[in-house]
């Protein structure tokens, strides 16, 4: 159900049929951190879903009808409605489906989580830059920037005096930022957590969450994916299957 073993669809593949009633479909890729956000929310809320993995190095022509930019994640409902952009998909799922709300109901608390999300916004591109630079030039400048961003997050936790970014229990903001922390070990950046003890504790608590632990990312497999992806290999997205 998590799409962990489904081979990706590439150029020349037949477009999938309509989404059956009672299900929602997510177009994803096993190693995409943005799509991981959506999978975390689907799992946390117990939403029945199906996953279609897309070969991002060899995109099917039909996928551009789902998202003109050809990016994952994309949600498709049984009514044919399409929702793009990971943060928007997560918010949609929280609003459209019953059960545990991941966004807080208090407008100010929700605004706080969104402000934290804004302050996190530099991290994804920094991590990708770091990935691209590995083994090449000196990346001390990048490391400095990453350290700055982590310190900002550390400050939030220190001021709030809570385990999670939204309070004493896990909520939307934690899931939204989590996927990039899974990359830390694979990119050998764990040393940065030595200066951010609260962030380190947060990571440990996240790993114990049933939703997070049901969708683990194996370090070796991720590293294998990185290698192939950086070489633009069409095999990258299915690495480890």
């Amino acid at each position, binding site marked *: 159900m998590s799409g962990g073993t489904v081979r990706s669809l590439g150029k020349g593949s037949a477009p999938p049929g309509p989404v059956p009633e009672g299900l929602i479909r997510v177009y994803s890729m096993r190693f995409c951190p943005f799509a991981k956000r959506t999978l975390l929310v689907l799992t946390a809320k117990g939403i029945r879903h199906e996953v279609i993995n897309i070969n991002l190095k060899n995109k099917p022509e039909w996928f551009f009808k789902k998202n003109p930019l050809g990016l994952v994640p994309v949600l498709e*409902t049984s009514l044919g*409605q399409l*929702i*793009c*952009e990971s943060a*928007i*998909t997560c*918010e*949609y799922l929280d*609003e*459209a489906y019953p059960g545990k709300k991941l966004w807080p109901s208090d*407008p*100010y608390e*929700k*605004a706080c989580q*969104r*402000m934290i999300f*804004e302050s996190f916004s530099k991290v994804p591109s920094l991590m990708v830059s770091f990935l691209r630079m590995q083994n090449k030039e000196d990346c001390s400048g990048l490391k400095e920037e990453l350290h700055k961003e982590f310190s900002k997050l550390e400050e939030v936790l220190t001021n709030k005096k809570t385990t999670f970014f939204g309070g004493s229990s896990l909520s939307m903001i934690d899931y939204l930022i989590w996927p990039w922390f899974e990359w830390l070990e694979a990119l050998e950046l764990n040393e940065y957590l030595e200066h951010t003890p609260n962030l380190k504790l947060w990571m440990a608590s996240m790993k114990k969450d049933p939703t997070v632990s049901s969708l683990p990312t194996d370090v070796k497999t991720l590293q294998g994916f990185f290698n192939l992806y950086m070489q633009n290999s069409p095999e990258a997205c299915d690495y480890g299957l």
Partner: protein
Amino acid sequence: MTDDATRTLGKGSIPPGPVPEGVIRLYSMRFCPYAHRTRLVLRAKGIRHEVININLRNKPEWYFTKHPFGQIPVLENSKCQLIYESVIACEYLDDAYPGRKLYPYDPYERARQKMLLELFYKVPHLTKECLVALRCGRDCTDLKLALRQEFCNLEEILGYQNTVFFGGDCISMIDYLFWPWFERLDVYGIADCVNHTPTLRLWIAAMKQDPTVCSLLTDKNTFLGFLNLYFQNNPAAFDYGLSC
């Protein structure tokens, strides 16, 4: 005269006191498009508010306790809670206050408005770059071309939807979030960028008929006066047009 027609506070000014109950405070600047979004939402929802204008070239020291980088807009309520980033502030107001909802209730329609906002992200930067280029006597052909392309994308959306406004047949949040930059096209000298987008021009005309938009329209000469002083780096720019 709008309710924000007050002189800016600058360096050395006394920090304002706490926000009275029943009122929300907006730290703003009369000509800032991002703050304009928040003023539109406050007005559209009829929310009792007070405005404190900040001199952005001469920021008060105390203002950095409201925003780490001294940016506007920032909302402050009577519980001393601070909310910044214009889009977050607008959503907060819609969630926290009763009455007319500006975002749709339907989760999919709401998601659609958020996706539309993503489509708009290049417009603020491009309009500003055009303004700066024109003011500095530089060529901005490429910039205007890029801006026209963005407007074509928006034109396509309106055409496909066959609605007057971006959210449907009534004005809603997304229209207010876009509006400030369209109001500035003329005074920035780039009104011709909508020459090839007739549906977008119809939207602009419809927006100008909205009571909220109307009530906050800035007089062109006042805006030009601000721009002239702003580009001379004159800190008096922000108070241009206010009687002493």
